[in-house]
């Protein structure tokens, strides 16, 4: 190295052998069939390419720098001393509430035959980095160097979607900075041949690091999982374990998450419900409010908007006369504008949910992989096409005609014929429908997250679709019925149709919920745990919501069968509509608060949601050294 260059990382004087990477050889491919030499996957990569760490053009001398590396954790040995976490936080200068690496534990047995197994976990730099795929801003890169999955906080806009999809809780969303950061594999140390600082700091000889599938000296096995570790098939994580000591048949977590792990007949430890809170049913209405409130509004409003617009447009285009009349009335433009405003407001809410809302435009940077991007694009298309639809629907609107005349002293028809405007509007409307449909589809895809089993079910589709129908029907009926009632015309066909759609939407939701409850109950994943919380902590709320849904469905069917012509039936429908709104709101709030991710077990204070909540309640979180911050959202 010449004098004018800066070292990528300064090696300590008299550095010890434990700190140096020591892979002599490596396998051709890993157990999932992925090539370990990443140059074989990425032929564009050039020899001697610098990683430009901190802008430094130096090229590392590590002979294995193009091979996939990973952590090796000897679970038998971890003493839970936090040295790895401290070394990591010191190196990366992280504040107390952010940790790229965390140690939690599972425990089992009874005194004195008691066992605690500590688990130290950071990013696993997966073969299939779901964070990278999910990130809408393209902040993630999987590097050919070491296979490191690195994230750029300067690109990130803080949506937190990567924190949803990662099964290991690796990306850290900082509520103060409003951005995500994560383990960087200490690539600066790797470039000079040193293991990451957490590994170098380990005092139990538990944590090691090297080319993946290599078993360190003095170790004998390379397992892909240990009790408490999420299913490796989700992402093919680059971590291997040794655990030769037997564990009790059941191990539990000390944190508030009602999960325990039970050994099945195959000897695998699978998540199970740990009835920490008993079986008493509670309301806990206050706890329905969460940091995801903006998303509750966003999803419901966008579904309502897309649903309403779709119902009215399809009905009018398919020649249902009452809808054709409505479309030609001066109630239609306000209706269409309302749908646009509602979804616009929803989008605004979803943007405020971002850590850095001013970077919202970066939300389309990863159309190739991210369902979040595609959802956003779908909504953008829907809104743009809807806007044009409205623009071209205006010439047919008598109120608009009057205003236009008043301002420009000329007929709008002198610019464009009402018929052609309507045809163009219909074309844009159809395009909006396409945008809306894809928005709804990708909205659903966003929640098909393997690391969140409660969401990862087709019920999310029946719920989103069902809500589009019910809420869409409600919004449409508000306008169409006002129009008919105020103009004294018969409204029964419109009401029957909308009532039918409403009932269909409710039935869809009902079927989904029933199947979801059946599929979650007793399953060997965290979905069962969510369902347990649904039945206990929110037991009464859950029942109330189901009651609302069921009775609305029943009332709707009865009303449809008994005829819908009388004005009095309108009041019953209105009441039913209110119940439906209420059910949707509760249902969606439950959807967000109930999800239990497949994260790692926490400890008694650290990474314990129950304690964090308590510390915020009593004000302990106001002390910076408590390592807990109050949620800003």
């Amino acid at each position, binding site marked *: 190295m010449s004098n004018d260059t800066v070292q990528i990382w300064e090696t300590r004087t008299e550095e010890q052998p434990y700190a140096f990477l020591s892979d002599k050889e490596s396998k051709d491919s890993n157990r999932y069939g992925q090539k370990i030499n990443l140059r074989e996957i990425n032929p564009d990569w050039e020899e001697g390419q610098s990683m430009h760490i901190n802008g430094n053009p130096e090229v590392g001398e590590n002979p294995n720098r193009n091979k996939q590396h990973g952590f090796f954790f000897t679970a038998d040995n971890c003493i839970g001393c936090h040295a790895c976490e401290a070394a990591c936080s010191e190196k*990366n200068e992280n504040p107390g509430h952010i940790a790229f690496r965390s140690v939690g534990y599972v425990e089992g047995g009874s005194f*004195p035959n008691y066992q605690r197994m500590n688990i130290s976990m950071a990013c696993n730099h997966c073969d299939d980095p779901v964070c990278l795929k999910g990130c809408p801003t393209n902040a993630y890169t999987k590097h050919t160097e070491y296979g490191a999955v690195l994230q750029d906080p300067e690109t990130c806009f803080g949506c937190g979607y990567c924190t949803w999809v990662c099964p290991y809780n690796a990306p850290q969303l900082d509520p103060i900075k409003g951005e995500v950061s994560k383990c960087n594999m200490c690539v600066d140390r790797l470039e000079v041949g040193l293991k990451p600082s957490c590994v170098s700091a380990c005092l139990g000889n538990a944590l090691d690091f090297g080319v993946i599938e290599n078993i360190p000296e003095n170790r004998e096995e390379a397992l892909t999982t240990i009790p408490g570790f999420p299913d490796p098939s989700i992402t093919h994580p680059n971590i291997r374990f040794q655990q030769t000591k037997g564990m009790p048949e059941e191990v539990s977590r000390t944190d508030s998450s009602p999960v325990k792990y039970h050994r099945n007949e195959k000897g695998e430890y699978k998540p199970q419900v740990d009835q920490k809170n008993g079986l008493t049913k509670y309301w806990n209405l206050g706890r329905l409010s969460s940091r995801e409130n903006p998303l509750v509004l966003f999803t419901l409003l966008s579904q309502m908007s897309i649903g309403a617009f779709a119902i009215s447009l399809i009905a009018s285009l398919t020649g249902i006369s009452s809808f054709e009349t409505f479309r030609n009335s001066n109630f239609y433009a306000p209706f269409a504008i309302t749908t646009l405003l509602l979804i616009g407001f929803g989008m605004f809410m979803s943007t405020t949910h971002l850590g850095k809302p001013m970077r919202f435009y970066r939300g389309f940077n990863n159309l190739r992989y991210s369902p979040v991007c595609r959802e956003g694009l779908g909504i953008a298309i829907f809104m743009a096409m809807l806007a044009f639809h409205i623009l071209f629907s205006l010439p047919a609107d008598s109120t608009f005609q009057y205003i236009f005349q008043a301002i420009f002293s000329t007929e709008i028809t002198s610019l464009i014929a009402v018929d052609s405007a309507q045809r163009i509007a219909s074309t844009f409307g159809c395009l909006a429908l396409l945008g809306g449909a894809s928005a709804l589809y990708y909205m659903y895809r966003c929640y098909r997250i393997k690391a969140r089993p409660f969401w990862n079910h087709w019920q999310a589709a029946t719920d989103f679709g069902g809500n589009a129908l019910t809420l869409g029907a409600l919004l449409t009926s508000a306008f169409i019925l006002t129009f008919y009632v105020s103009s004294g015309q018969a409204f029964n066909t419109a009401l029957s149709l909308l009532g039918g759609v409403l009932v269909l939407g409710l039935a869809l939701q009902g079927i989904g919920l029933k199947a979801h409850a059946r599929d979650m109950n007793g399953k060997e994943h965290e979905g069962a745990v969510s369902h347990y919380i649904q039945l206990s902590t929110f037991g009464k709320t859950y029942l109330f919501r189901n009651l609302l849904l069921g009775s609305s469905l029943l009332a709707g069917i009865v009303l449809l069968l008994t005829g819908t012509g009388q004005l009095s039936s309108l009041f019953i429908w209105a009441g039913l509509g209110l119940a439906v709104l209420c059910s949707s709101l509760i249902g969606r709030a439950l959807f967000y608060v109930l999800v239990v991710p497949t994260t790692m077990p926490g400890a008694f204070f650290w990474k314990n949601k129950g304690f964090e909540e308590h510390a915020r309640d009593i004000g302990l979180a106001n002390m910076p050294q408590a390592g807990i911050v109050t949620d800003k959202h």
Partner: protein
Amino acid sequence: MFFGRKNRKPIVIPPKPVKEWKYSTCNYCSTGCTIELGLDATGKVITSRGHAGADVNRGKLCIKGLQEHELFNSAGRGLDPLMRQRPQDDFQKVNWTQALDYSAEKIQAIQQQYGRDAFAVVSTGQLMTEEFYTLGKLTRGCIGTNNYDGNTTLCMASAVSGYKRTFGLDGPPGCYDDFEHTDCLMAFGSNLPEQHPVIYWRLKEARETRKFPLIVVDPRVTMFAQFADIHLPITPGTDCVLINSMLHVIFKEGLEDRAYLEANTNGLAELEELVKQYDPITAQHICGIDEDTIRQVARLYAKANTAMSIWTMGINQSTHGSDGVCNINNLNLCTGNIGKPGGTSLSITGQCNAMGTREWSSCSGLPGYRYLENEKDREDVAKFWGIDEEFFPKQRGMAQTDIFPAIENGDIKGMWLVATNPMTSMANTARIRKMLEKLDLLIVQDCYEDVETNQYAHVYFPASVWAEKQGCHTNTERRVNLTRSALAPPGNAKSDFWIFNQMAKRFPNGKLINFPDETEAVFDEMKALSKGKDRTLDISGMTYDKIEAAKGIQWPYREGTEGLKGEARLYSDGKFPTTNGKANLIAINFIDNNERPNEQYPFWLNSGRLVEHFHTRTRTGKIANGNKFSPTPFMEMNPDAAEKLGIKHQHYVRLVSRRGDAVVMVQLTQRVPPNMVFVPFHFHDCVNRLTLGLLDPYSRQPAFKQCAVQIEHVDQLEAAQLNKERRRF
């Protein structure tokens, strides 16, 4: 695939532009890890790292050491001396002259009115050795009080006492290298992974390649107990019974090293006679370890080629602390395991410089392991310092744990506390508060102004910490190591060394005794006092530069020694610094004087350390990346016991003992037995509101770990509020 994106995102990792690395030794525990402090171009400490070339830690550091450099900018540091007439008044900022003048006058006034011993000095195990030596000179030579002790009475006095009773002299005879040679290791009340993680790592390294049996005696299933080949979950306070019974088996089966015993020990007959009463059948009912296991362990230990014992507070902090140490020494003498590679009695000490204070502070006598009771020692030191030897008392005064009750008696009227926090660290907080309220003068010298004891201070001296000053520490294995000054203390804070020197000028003898301005000049004085063929504590060959080059040197290291290595072990030749050169076997009879659980107070209360905290949290409570692992106190409780009482995980309860109460959050775990709870000792207004702290008859160390409590339900909201209020930092 995801590779080869054309526009790579920039990779930004904190660069740490270190211009200079400064050499230092960790200021927390007694492991003695070498740390390098990284200074940037402006001289600011921006990072630190373990010294990879230091033999003790070989580049490793624990959670506390890794973040220790954050201390320099932590909250609550004292920036100016403070004074007030009464503890109820507000403090006034003063300058050093005012603070020192007032204190010196007031001390002398108290001494004139009530006698020289009415003013007490209680120091610590946290200062530099040069500072301890200077404080000793000041206290013994100038102030002239005989009530002078360190808080080391709370942590290793029993080890000192036990070593003195058996070997005739303090000083651990073994070293960490013994792990590499031993064939059996038995740990008594020592939870290395939590208390001394780096020593644990040294042990783990030894066991990576060479498996040898590990026996852990601990009433809790600690991580260390879990990793042991044999775990003995003993009944609290009954270690003596276990060891006596092991000795019973050893003698009965002829497993002892009789040749060694006959050649090198006194008192064999008495010991043999006594342990006859401790047959495993009887002993099992007292110590809670079944007779078969006692025999198994005794045989394993005695038959091992070499075997070693380590212990920490599980032994020291009990009414049989000193006895327990003697008994561990008995076990090792009987099996011929003293002074051998892999065969030793190694006390794992607490504070970073507990050894330094034992060696040089004159707390328990005179510097360099000299005794007040010894006329020659008094003469030598008086001559060396240039004062009248009659100024020295002829017998050691009170220990810390007797000094405090003497305030109750009215015998002590004034006190100077140096880097110690009895409001949190001593047993029975309520009693300590009453005592401190009674003082006419309380001087608190600490680097933190918010140290809890400051509530009762009349004068506060803001001190510097760690690498804000220069000097040496001695670690658990007698290794003297150096800290170079890396930065200046904040505001008007001064090094403890400077404060002692300035105080000395205000006493008549301070004009007779030389108080050098440089710490290395003080080190030279210590070297001169350490010389002597029969002195084991000989540091005369050391210099600061040699210590840094060697990254620590073990004593004895005599003048003229070639190379940079001191002696790794003591007593390898079988010669002991007793009157007849033989080690004393001391027959230990078990007396059950602990407060045991009963119907009203049905649980044993055990206390202990957490890896992320040090002592009373004055430092570690300020560092988020450590404190977050236990920001408030908690209690480990067995879930089966909790179910009977209707106590829930993560709920608050009130613990009540015969002394007081404490509010803690419950952590249910099978780690503790159904009749015991465990509470960490670090937290203010917590476990020591409950503890009894009966004193060991020899060492005067309190039995923190054995008392009885009951558990009561509390209003969760009020308890949470109280818990928060008691955590000022």
